[in-house]
């Protein structure tokens, strides 16, 4: 909403500097986004063209004698519309203006143009910063005072309001005036409305009915006959322009003017084109259509409210008029409508037709029905003043929704105290509310009943009044206290803690956290999961773009895309992880959101260094991360070979704990590497379901083991085992011995001296007892048992 201060001052005596006013409004909830100055035309005055004669050396230029109030100067002018007698905007030499040739603001110099010295300039809109036009000069009204500085005559300041949806009232100049009045301690003067009614009784000339009162609470109208259509006067055009509305003709301009003044959208029909002088407010009928004022033919549905004459729709109620009843140059009689339409329905119509107008902007927020006749009379008065004509007697006022008007609202000092935590006299509240236009009646020592002014639609409960009071007295006057109520007991959500723990552990394992959008394309998804494994992921109706249309059921695709982007900037090492939700659709319910962690490792194992650490990150680096994190969480995971389309055959493991799958780990399939444009020869990836992990974390069962007082005995064991026996199985067999405390694999070897189909594994095996020093005999006996079990269970034997 653009509020020209020159217009605002018509209703409220306001002398604050614009910036100070803007600040006060903003603090009170009417945010001023910008303060636009119109003017700063130093050296410009209202001038008058005394004579115009052709320039001898140039056809399109003329030489003008201009009176400035103090002297007469000769000026060269190129505008076709310059004429003797015109009042014009005259810039003396030295004025700073927009130069249409250089595109900059420059000081105006005396210039010799085709042999004649021009001692100033007659300005166009562009040079004054008033608009884009520079073909013609600005012609001022005849009564413009000669010689007066242009700033004084037509300078202005415009407040650009950025309103929250509740402050409908400030979409009008008068509504804003009430706000300003309350903030500056001034009173508001509403325009006086009175006009002669020389015509017949209005009811004789028009019949109006509301067929669907749920969508139209009130419909008021007047008829004005014998008007003449023409341009509206300059002052009205100027105000409309500054408020951002394009002038059209006197009748349409009045409806817009009153809308800006009072907030009530109005519509003028050509009375002669309303068939049978009948207006019916009703829902559209099946098959009906209407060509609206913007020239578009619109097919109507029964949700749309129309204004119809005896036969057809002639307008969309509260949205836009119909071309079939439009005011034209030949219109002589006007039916003027000022009605109250239902907000939600109006909004729905505007959305379904993609047609948001100045009218719907207001109606959708719910205008008060009290406003309709007030604005109607004001507009009738102005039309009669500006376009002539005779007004029918009285107004039509159909008001089926009279019963449910906003009731007065009670406010007590107790409520103020309870909500704000401050003591405020009810008299103080009354003073504030009255300054905003509320009508207050004290109903006791410490309460009042406030009647909400008709321009406000946002006040219906006591808390609303509390806000009215505090936003005007200012939030600084409220004390600052700390919560004094007891802290509620709360059992922390274990998942929140676990997610934080997992993130910390991954970071300490050298992984960098990334956060991706949770949306992916179906193509990317199909690159990392087996088709038969996924039910179709949830799709967005209005994704930001086609590549982000599905809610991800896995973190893999996003993480690989992020890796690809970063591989463009360096060679690694890349150790990236993400902890986020994946979304599994459920029938008729919100999707299951599972906390998931995933990581990707690629590139060199270490940063470039003079201390060499060779090699590329591989499967076992990834496994090291997963195993360390799980181990730190107290989860003893097992890994078993698995097949997964994301991973290279034979290079993928399922991660399990207590028989439950926690996730997957592996080196990517070359096809996946190329599908995601990854440039490492090998990329390792893991994904863990944190929800599943939480089931495997037994925090409460963690128990202290006392430290053994007896020494550790270590034996080295070199074994020969069939190649297909997993190493984990061998460790497991060794660990079954009661006195084995740990097993450390230190070498794996195949090749020379190892028979085909076998592998050599070397271990440190540590023995320790809780209750005695182990003798060599005890250790040897245990070792013999282990070797027997290995032989029997997996065919492994001591390497000779």
């Amino acid at each position, binding site marked *: 909403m653009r509020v020209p201060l020159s217009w605002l001052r018509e209703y409220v005596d306001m002398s604050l500097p614009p910036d100070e006013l803007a600040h006060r409004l*903003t603090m009170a*909830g009417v945010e001023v986004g910008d303060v636009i100055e119109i003017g700063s035309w130093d050296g410009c005055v209202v001038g008058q063209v005394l004579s115009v004669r052709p320039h001898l050396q140039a056809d399109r230029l003329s030489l003008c004698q201009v009176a400035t109030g103090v002297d007469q100067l000769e000026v060269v002018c190129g505008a076709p519309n310059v004429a003797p007698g015109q009042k014009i905007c005259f810039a003396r030499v030295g004025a700073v203006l927009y130069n249409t040739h250089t595109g900059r603001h420059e000081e105006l110099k005396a210039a010799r143009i085709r042999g004649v010295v021009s001692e100033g300039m007659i300005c166009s809109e562009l040079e004054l910063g008033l608009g884009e036009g520079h073909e013609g000069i600005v012609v001022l009204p005849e009564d413009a005072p000669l010689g007066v500085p242009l700033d004084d005559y037509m300078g202005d300041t415009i407040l650009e309001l950025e309103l*929250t*949806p509740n*402050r409908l009232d400030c979409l009008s100049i008068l509504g804003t005036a009430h706000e300003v009045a309350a903030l500056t301690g001034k009173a508001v003067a509403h325009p006086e409305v009175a006009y002669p009614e020389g015509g017949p009784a209005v009811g004789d000339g028009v019949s109006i009915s509301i067929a669907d009162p749920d969508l139209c609470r009130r419909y008021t109208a007047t008829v004005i006959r014998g008007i003449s259509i023409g341009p509206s006067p300059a002052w009205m055009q100027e105000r409309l322009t500054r408020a951002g509305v394009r002038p059209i003709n006197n009748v349409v301009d009045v409806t817009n003017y009153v809308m800006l003044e009072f907030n009530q959208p109005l519509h003028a029909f050509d009375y002669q084109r309303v068939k049978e002088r009948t207006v019916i407010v009703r829902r559209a009928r099946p098959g009906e259509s209407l060509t609206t004022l913007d020239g578009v033919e619109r097919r109507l549905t029964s949700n749309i409210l129309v204004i119809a004459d005896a036969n057809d729709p002639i307008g969309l109620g509260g949205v836009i008029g119909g071309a079939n009843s439009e005011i034209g140059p030949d219109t002589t009689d006007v039916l003027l409508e000022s009605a109250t339409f239902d*907000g939600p*329905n109006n*909004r*729905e119509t505007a959305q379904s037709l993609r047609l948001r107008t100045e009218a719907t902007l207001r109606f959708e*927020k719910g205008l008060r029905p009290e406003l309709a006749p007030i604005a109607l009379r004001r507009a009738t008065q102005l039309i009669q003043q500006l376009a002539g004509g005779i007004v029918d007697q009285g107004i039509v006022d159909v008001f089926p929704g009279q019963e449910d008007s906003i009731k007065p609202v009670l406010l007590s000092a107790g409520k103020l105290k*309870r909500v704000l*935590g*401050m003591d405020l006299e009810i008299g103080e509240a009354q003073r504030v509310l009255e300054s905003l236009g509320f009508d207050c009646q004290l109903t006791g020592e410490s309460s009042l009943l406030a009647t909400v002014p008709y321009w406000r639609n946002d006040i219906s409960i006591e*808390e*609303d009044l*509390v806000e009215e009071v*505090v*936003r005007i007295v200012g*939030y600084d006057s*409220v*004390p*600052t*206290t*700390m*919560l004094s*109520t*007891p*802290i*509620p007991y*709360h059992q*922390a959500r274990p*998942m*929140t803690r676990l997610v*934080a723990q997992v*993130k910390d552990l*991954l*970071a*300490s*394992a*050298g992984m*960098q*956290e990334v*956060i991706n*959008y*949770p949306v992916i394309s179906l193509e990317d998804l199909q690159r990392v999961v087996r088709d038969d494994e996924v039910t179709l992921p*949830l*799709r*967005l*109706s*209005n994704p*930001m773009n086609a590549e982000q249309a599905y809610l991800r059921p896995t973190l893999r695709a996003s993480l690989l895309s992020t890796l690809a*982007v970063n591989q463009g*900037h*360096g060679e690694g090492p890349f150790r990236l992880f993400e902890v986020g939700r994946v*979304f599994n659709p459920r029938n*008729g319910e*919100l999707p299951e*959101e599972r906390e998931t962690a995933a990581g990707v490792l690629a590139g060199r194992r270490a940063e470039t260094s*003079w201390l060499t*650490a060779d090699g590329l990150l591989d499967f076992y680096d990834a496994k090291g991360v997963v195993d360390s994190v799980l181990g730190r969480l107290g989860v003893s995971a097992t890994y078993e070979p698995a097949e997964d389309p994301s991973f290279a055959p034979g290079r993928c493991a399922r991660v399990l704990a207590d028989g439950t799958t926690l996730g997957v780990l592996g080196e990517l399939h070359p096809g996946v590497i190329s599908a995601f444009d990854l440039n490492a020869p090998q990329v390792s990836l893991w994904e863990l379901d944190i929800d599943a992990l939480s089931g495997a974390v037994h925090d409460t069962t963690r128990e202290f083991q006392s430290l053994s007082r007896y020494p550790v005995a270590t034996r080295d064991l070199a074994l020969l085992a069939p190649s297909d026996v997993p190493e984990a199985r061998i460790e497991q067999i060794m660990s079954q011995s009661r006195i084995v405390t740990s097993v450390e694999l230190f070498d794996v070897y195949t090749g020379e001296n190892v028979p085909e189909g076998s592998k050599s594994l070397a271990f440190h095996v540590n023995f320790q007892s809780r209750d005695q020093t182990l003798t060599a005999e005890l250790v040897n006996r245990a070792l013999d048992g282990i070797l027997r079990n290995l032989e029997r269970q997996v065919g492994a034997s001591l390497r000779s």
Partner: protein
Amino acid sequence: MPESITQSIETLVHNALAELGEAHDSQTLDQWRVAYLGRRGRLTTILRGLSQLDLEERRAAGALGNKAKRSLEEHLDRRESEIRQVQLDRSAELDRLDVTLPGRPLSMGRLHPTTQVIREITSAFTAMGFSIVEGPEVEWDKYNFEMLNIPQGHPARDMWNTVWVDYQNESGERPMLLRTHTSPMQARVMEATKPPVRVIVPGKCYRYEATDATHEWHFYQVEGLAVDEGITFADLKGTLYEFARRLFGEERRVRFRCDYFPFVEPGVDMSIDCFACDGEGTSGCRICRDSGWIEIMGAGMVHPRVLAGVGYDTEKYTGFAFGLGPERIAMLKYGIDDIRLFYSNDLRFLRQF
């Protein structure tokens, strides 16, 4: 005792010590020891010559000789350790490390700046008795809007451009969406809990909005809610003031102005005085754009309709709610000028935090 013997011992000691002072390595020391103290050394030779003296004289000269011997031995020891020290120093000099060479690189992981800032924010509130809860990112219209006093067709819905999920229920409605704020958890928490309530809700939110340097369609919010008997706007001020000091420094001042969110009444937003220019608003401050103040969060007293909607007794309970954007806080704290950097995950950005 003949003068000559005393004399020659003294001379010998004098010469020996002078020579010792010139010895700089163990080899020279060895030669010196042999020359003076060896079995055929000069002192021994002198002492051996004593045999020609009478007993009395021999005893006196012997004592003198032994004293000289002990003295020379002590000097030898001292000199030996001096030389060893010098040699040690010299070899250390040769093995000196270039301490400016880079250390062995260790892979250090980091948390995303958003995670770090969320932790900073939530810990400020948990210190004031707030508990962390989380909610679903995919929500129903009911929780995202309706229970927050934003019914269907309410013009305030324009404040949250919504990304909708392609889902239709049996009545033909399409009520599934990506939550536009963390506020739905206000309704969910109160629905599930009897008062008192004091929670903080971090989480992802989504808006159907074009992205630019200050707008992301995917972002985080941290929501707060405190409901109990006797909670007032003054408590809201105190809590948020304390938060501002914890995050931005003890000297911070805060300012509240009227703002509108349908689920609070009264509604405000809170600014802190600019930490870059100390609230001076002097020209050219990029952080506060010369206003001296920086808006950091929206807040207000929980709307009675929201309380009533979850079955709370509005005559008994009051509360406040607030919400803020961790990315904005991070941008302010670290001087980041483009929000899109957060989720494009460029390591050159992430590694700065």
